[in-house]
């Protein structure tokens, strides 16, 4: 593989299966690729080369023994908020800069059992709080399509790594859009599954009622293959869904004739970039040409309230979840103080970055005595309204279609000092986490050379519908095959 050509998971699997290449050769080629491009893209917090080569040898043994799954021997990159036993898991935070987990997340166990080859851990916004990776305590990842722009976030490292060919696929996590928005920004396919579909055990908690792990891949077929490997009930995650997991590859059928699609007008927000709007409309037109019945005039009137609901609920949950970082059990620990409490306060002062502290403060305020009803309880009630509107829409439509983000990737630094502007880049993705439903972002064209993401939203546990529609669209278009020049 002297001339690196990025291949899908499906193609890679076929080659491994037919013994055209070994996992060890493949792994070496990807390590070389990482060496060539990651100094520009800066997608990775750590490269686990030795471990990867060891896993590749094991995978080759599995393949030789005929014990192969579609994930066996395939290079993958994991967002650095999923615990990997014996391998640093930092959440791109100074607080966990040296943290070595004593156990594996369930998704890691599952991928390990399937014979994965982990190439490294991906950069992210600190504790998954952000939309650009600029909140990483280490460095900002660059968008492979324009190195002066952000890759999106918080799973920006995962998205950029897949786009840049540093691995065949990646795992990300999505609390308010953190898989879909960077997938849209980097021209990759990213799924946020239904809440509970993939175990959260070992995912460093941000907002527990919203967090969900999902695949970031080169196309929807790969997405289905990865979901087959990671979805399923886990007794160690009490919010894990007990519904049986289907074979997602069965939904890869290029046919959406008669599929009822709704286009909620509230997602075409004021201030949306005109080229993005045009791109999304063209894509929806394409779905209609392919046989879908499109209703362009759907209204979900509570949508404009989702941003406020999210920025009350997520920081509230975060303020509770992040209370565990006290400098006592693991992580950064300030020890020069004059008392235990002083050490604890300074541990949190110096260990957390500005956005994380801002959200802890915001959540603490929203939950504090005298404000609980006005903020947290009110937000939870509006959350009910948002869910009900989706439920109602799904009695009439099989799927909703929206932009993934109102704009193309912005310049590094452009929104860094304005939290409210930054939060707005997630307006199209937040409502989905609030409702706990699945959504996928797929490539849908370019505006000025920068990718546009198209979002499909479905009712709970309708990943198959999303896959079918996305597969049909990708069979008819080639946006997802376009790769950045690096």
């Amino acid at each position, binding site marked *: 593989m002297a001339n690196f050509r990025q291949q899908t998971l499906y193609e890679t699997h076929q080659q491994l299966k037919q013994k055209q290449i070994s996992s060890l050769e493949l792994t070496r080629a990807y390590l070389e690729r990482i060496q060539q491009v990651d100094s520009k893209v800066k997608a990775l917090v750590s490269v686990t080369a030795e471990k990867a080569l060891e896993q590749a040898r094991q995978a080759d043994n599995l393949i030789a023994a005929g014990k192969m799954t579609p994930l066996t021997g395939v290079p993958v990159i994991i967002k650095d908020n999923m615990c990997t036993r014996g391998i640093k898991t930092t959440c791109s935070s100074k607080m966990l800069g040296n943290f070595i987990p*004593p156990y594996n997340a369930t998704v890691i166990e599952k991928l390990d059992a399937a014979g994965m080859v982990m190439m490294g851990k991906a950069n992210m916004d600190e504790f998954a709080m952000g939309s650009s990776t600029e909140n990483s305590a280490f460095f900002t990842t660059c968008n492979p399509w324009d190195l002066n722009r952000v890759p999106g976030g918080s799973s920006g490292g995962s998205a950029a790594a897949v786009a840049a060919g540093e691995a065949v696929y990646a795992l990300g996590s999505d609390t308010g859009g953190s898989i879909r928005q960077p997938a849209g920004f980097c021209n990759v396919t990213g799924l946020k599954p239904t809440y509970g579909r993939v175990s959260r055990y070992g995912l460093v908690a941000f907002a527990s009622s919203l967090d969900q792990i999902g695949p970031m891949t080169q196309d929807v077929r790969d997405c289905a293959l990865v979901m087959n490997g990671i979805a399923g009930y886990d007794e160690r995650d009490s919010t894990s869904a007990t519904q049986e997991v289907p074979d997602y590859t069965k939904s890869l059928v290029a046919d959406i004739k008669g599929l009822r699609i709704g286009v909620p007008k509230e997602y075409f927000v004021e201030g949306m970039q005109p080229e993005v709007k045009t791109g999304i409309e063209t894509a929806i037109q394409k779905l209609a040409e392919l046989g879908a019945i499109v209703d362009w005039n759907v209204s979900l009137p509570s949508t404009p*309230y989702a941003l406020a609901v999210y920025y009350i609920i997520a920081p509230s949950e975060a303020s509770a979840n992040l209370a565990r970082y006290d400098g006592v059990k693991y*992580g950064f620990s300030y020890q020069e103080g004059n008392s235990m409490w002083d050490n604890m306060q300074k541990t*949190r002062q110096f260990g957390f970055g500005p956005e994380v502290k801002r959200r*802890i403060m*915001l959540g603490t*305020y929203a939950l504090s005595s005298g404000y609980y009803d006005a903020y947290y309880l009110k*937000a939870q009630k509006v959350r*009910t309204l948002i869910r009900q509107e989706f439920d109602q829409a799904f009695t009439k439509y099989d799927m909703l279609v929206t932009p993934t983000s109102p704009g193309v990737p912005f310049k590094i630094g452009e929104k860094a000092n304005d939290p409210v502007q930054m939060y707005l880049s997630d307006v199209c993705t937040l409502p989905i986490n609030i409702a706990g439903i699945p959504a996928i972002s797929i490539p849908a064209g370019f505006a000025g050379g920068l990718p546009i993401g198209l979002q499909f939203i479905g009712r709970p546990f309708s990943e198959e519908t999303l896959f079918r529609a996305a597969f049909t669209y990708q069979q008819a278009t080639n946006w997802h095959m376009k790769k950045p020049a690096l």
Partner: protein
Amino acid sequence: MMKLKREEVLHIAALARVGVTDADVEIMQEQLSNILENFEILKKLDTEGVSPTAQSIALQNVIMKDEIKASLPQEDVLFNAPQREGDFFKVKVVLED
């Protein structure tokens, strides 16, 4: 909505056990107030009689079987301890005179 007072920010910081400098407090007064102002929009919505949603799935009271299982080895758990003494996490004195 009025800008958060300095004392309010200090109070929240104390509740959250986050140390802050004077400069931090000033920035947070500004930024938190801006964010809170964006929450005012929720007041426009009538939520009378609407029950709150804490999580989006129908699961309730998930109960596990009471089975004895091996937990992590003590050494593994203490591995990341910033300070330890024997098999304990070590901290400064908690209760003072």
